[in-house]
């Protein structure tokens, strides 16, 4: 398989401040429906970018564009400084080794068990079996689901499937994690559990991430909470603090209507944004 970028080049680019993901005037259309219109934004190393917006405005499409699962009609998507337009299929698969993705409906392989689902990428990379097992157990412990290692996806609840999907995304220690509505369709308590895992991944592993959510409370929980490694739980940042690495991107009708920090978002005078947030 072709190489996307060598480890040394990736480190060099991260040190030089090259954005992990960059959308440059990206437009996308399905038949007559223009889903994204000249969308541009950058996600810096270590940043958590929360993507908000009403249903059907192209958030999931944007996520698939970031991973090369879809290609834009115009504009450019760059991952670690390399344009996806210039990559061949083989380089694209190599690029995806640096990106973990949590799908909206988990997208677990239902004919194999949890262990094999989580181990999937490592097996493809021909990692030794003993190391695969150790890393799978570690990833499942991270999502507190190590007891479900031998179960099959249809035996799991929606929240458990989402947690296995997170374990599958983080097991290869990617540079970027894409969460496509990880709390969609879940009850509030389970949603909080999933958000706690996202916060834990952010604060423990410092992985760059893009997260789509329809629940504003989830987005603001991400911005106002941190993971306390001593207590092992997510807690509010003291003195009403806000996580500086968590930023927002709001999309409406295929356009970026907001790109900035939590403070900028809550202080925005944009009438549509105010109505959306209220």
């Amino acid at each position, binding site marked *: *398989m072709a190489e996307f970028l060598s480890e040394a080049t990736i480190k060099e680019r991260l040190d030089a401040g090259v954005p992990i993901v960059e959308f440059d005037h990206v437009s996308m259309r399905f038949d007559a429906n223009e889903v994204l219109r000249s969308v541009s934004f950058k996600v810096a190393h270590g940043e958590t970018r929360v993507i908000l917006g009403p249903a059907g405005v192209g958030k999931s499409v944007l996520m*698939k564009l970031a*991973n090369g*699962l879809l290609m834009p009609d115009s504009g450019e998507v760059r991952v670690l400084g390399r344009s996806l337009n210039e990559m061949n*299929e083989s380089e694209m*698969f*190599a690029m*995806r*080794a640096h*990106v973990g*993705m949590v*799908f*909206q*409906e988990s*997208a*677990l*392989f*239902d004919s194999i068990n949890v262990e094999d689902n989580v181990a*999937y*990428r490592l097996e*493809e*990379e021909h990692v030794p079996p003993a190391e695969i097992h150790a890393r799978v157990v570690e990833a499942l412990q991270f999502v507190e689901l190590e007891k479900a290692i031998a179960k099959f996806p249809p035996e799991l609840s929606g929240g458990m499937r989402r947690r296995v999907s997170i374990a*599958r995304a983080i097991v290869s220690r990617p540079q970027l994690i894409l969460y496509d509505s990880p709390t969609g369709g879940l009850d509030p308590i389970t949603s909080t559990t999933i958000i706690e895992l996202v916060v834990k991944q952010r604060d423990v592993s410092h992985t760059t991430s893009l997260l789509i959510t329809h629940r504003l409370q989830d987005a603001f929980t991400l911005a106002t909470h941190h993971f306390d490694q001593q207590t092992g739980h997510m807690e509010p940042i003291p003195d009403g603090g806000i996580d500086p690495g968590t930023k927002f991107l709001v999309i409406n009708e295929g356009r970026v209507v907001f790109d900035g920090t939590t403070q900028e978002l809550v202080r925005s005078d944009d009438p549509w944004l105010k109505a959306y947030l209220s």
Partner: protein
Amino acid sequence: MPLASPEALAKKIVSSVQEYSLLSARAVADLFSTPRYIADTYTQMDSIGFGSLPIVILTGFFTGCVLALQAAVTLKEFGAVNMTGRLVSLSMVKELGPVLTGLMVSGRNTSGMASELGSMKVSEQIDAMRALGTDPVRKLVAPRLVASVVMLFFLTIIADACGMAGGAAVSVILLRLNAGAFLHSSYMALQYGDIVEGLVKPLFSGFIIATVGCYYGLKTTGGTRGVGQSTTQAVVVSSVFIILVDFLVTQLMIGIFGR
């Protein structure tokens, strides 16, 4: 359902042919480069080959039985009932063995492939596979292609053998013919070209079964209803293709071997 304009319909057909050709070409090209999913290929061989064995044996056997019965009625009028074995063997080896095996395996496996891959497509498992760095064509289509072509070849031989056994059973038990004479006339009727023709056809049928099943599975949209539609279309198209290609291969073989 609104009627599509002729232009839109033509574009759709051309687009489908292009997509099918590209998928088939990629699946074949993937066989000549790494990584190769050998374990998946063996799993598919077990599923397609061993799994289809009962229907192939039963279909072959009873087709041979019916052929012997029908042939004997006509041959009796000419006093040539001893030629029953010749007719059964030629029909089974050249035509009925390959075509019926292809159709039976198509009904069982094209639908299985289309529904399995279709379910994976609508539940985003195909996208997940790509996101995890695996080429779905290499992982899902290429092993099914190899398994179908290889196993259909052997299943056809088994169907031919079962057909001749069925014909022999009817000839001996019901028509009171001599078993040795039946088998001798069966054997003597077959020439090199007949065997080649009978064994070339399943290679094409296996290719059609795998590529059509996987193509319809991978292009599935529209949830569970879409999976059902893809499955039905896959079986219909592969069955028609098998019969069409059978005709073309027969023409070709007559051109080459003169019979």
